């Protein structure tokens, strides 16, 4: 690793001032699982690391007015084990549980997973399907972005120099909804997915037809992405083989995967179709259970 200056501020304002001062040469670091690995491989060489470890107010999982807020410093393990999240947004707790190993999940944070912007990560896929928003701070200002506008390219986000992810907000699903996250892993359980899909389904009051569904895809494009053409086929429909096939084909048309040791591009395109079908089926089943057992 290269030599770098290390700052450990104790207040958010102080951290933002340092990030502004160093601009492009600074990187914020939380758990460091992604950043330190990239620095060890000399893929990034920041002149200054700004540790977020000692900054109060960036942790915690809170819910207000149907929206859950996850602080940037919440670890994957905390999200995975949160009883509240397990009860109200089980798909999100389950998605964090699917990341790497327990060792990684003890260190890796919610904010870090977004700022790293590796399209192979799990949480961004589910967060995208849940219509999450990112709260971004800079010295003297803040802005909020829909997660779909946050990811720009491989390892590239909309964050400008001096900006920091402070928290993420996720709306709870309406009644009669279900969600799922499926990950195709032909090698090991802690690997990145060959194809990952998150889906939500909200049913009409009759419990038979879909009112709205959302589908997000991971590991098949430079960023996680929504399969909007597939989503558009769901409204008003019943779940059957024909619909699953049509949605899978529409999603397959939206992906742009790379050939690598997890599969060829052609294989990943075909597996997108398969995994969209599985994700929708699971989300649909969960929604049907929610209709039978209303909260």
């Amino acid at each position: 690793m290269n030599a770098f200056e290390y700052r450990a501020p104790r207040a958010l304002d102080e951290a933002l001032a340092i990030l502004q001062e160093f601009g492009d040469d600074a990187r914020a670091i939380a758990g460091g699982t992604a950043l330190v690995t990239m620095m060890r491989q000399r893929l990034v060489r920041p002149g200054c690391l700004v540790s977020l470890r000692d900054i109060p107010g960036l942790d915690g999982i809170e819910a207000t007015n149907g929206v859950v807020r996850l602080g940037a410093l919440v670890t994957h393990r905390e999200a995975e084990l949160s009883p509240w999240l397990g009860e109200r947004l089980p798909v999100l707790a389950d998605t964090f549980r699917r990341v790497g190993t327990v060792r990684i999940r003890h260190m890796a944070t919610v904010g870090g997973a977004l700022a790293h912007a590796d399209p192979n990560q799990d949480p961004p896929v589910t967060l995208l399907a849940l219509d999450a928003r990112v709260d971004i701070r800079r010295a003297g200002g803040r802005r909020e972005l829909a997660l779909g506008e946050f990811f720009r390219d491989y390892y590239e986000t909309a964050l400008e120099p001096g900006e920091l992810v402070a928290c993420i907000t996720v709306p709870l699903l309406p009644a009669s909804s279900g969600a799922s996250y499926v990950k195709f892993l032909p090698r090991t359980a802690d690997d990145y997915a060959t194809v990952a899909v998150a889906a939500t389904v909200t049913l009409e009051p009759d419990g038979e037809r879909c009112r709205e569904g959302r589908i997000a895809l991971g590991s098949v494009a430079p960023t996680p992405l929504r399969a909007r053409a597939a989503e558009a086929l769901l409204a008003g429909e019943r779940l059957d083989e024909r619909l699953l096939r049509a949605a899978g084909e529409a999603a397959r048309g939206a992906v742009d995967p790379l050939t690598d040791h997890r599969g060829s591009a052609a294989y990943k395109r075909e597996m997108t179709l398969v995994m969209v079908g599985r994700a929708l089926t699971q989300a649909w089943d969960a929604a049907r259970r929610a209709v039978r057992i209303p909260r």
Partner: protein
Amino acid sequence: MTRVIRLRVNGAAHDVEVPTYRTLLDCLRNDLGLTGSKEGCGVGVCGACTVLLDGKMISSCIALAVFADGREVTTVEGLAEDERLHPVQQAFMDAGGFQCGICTPGQVVAAKALLDTTPHPSDAEIREWMLGNLCRCTGYYKIVESIQAAAQQNRS
């Protein structure tokens, strides 16, 4: 660019001056002489460098030493009490939970962390918890048996 950090390692306090880029693993091995933790992959995948930070297992090869400033670190050297091996270490010896031994420090630290929170794990819980601790010799059966044997001792 160095910093003085304070670590509590296996119960003993240390003030160490480290370059900012030093990993926790290198600090333990090179600055404190605790060479039980190994570097395998160097990218947080293989588990040979597993240590506990405030009781939680982490990969010390991708943690900066400065990140551990002010915290409690437990390494494999901290498991035995006086001359008595930790039950997990004894179980690995009795049940043959290792062959070449390079992964063993990480395995026993991870197993101890599991039993700290889950004293009587199922085989499935053991396999899920330990999936990030690679072993190229045992085929894992003996490792699972060793951890079950240590858990049995908890029971008795």
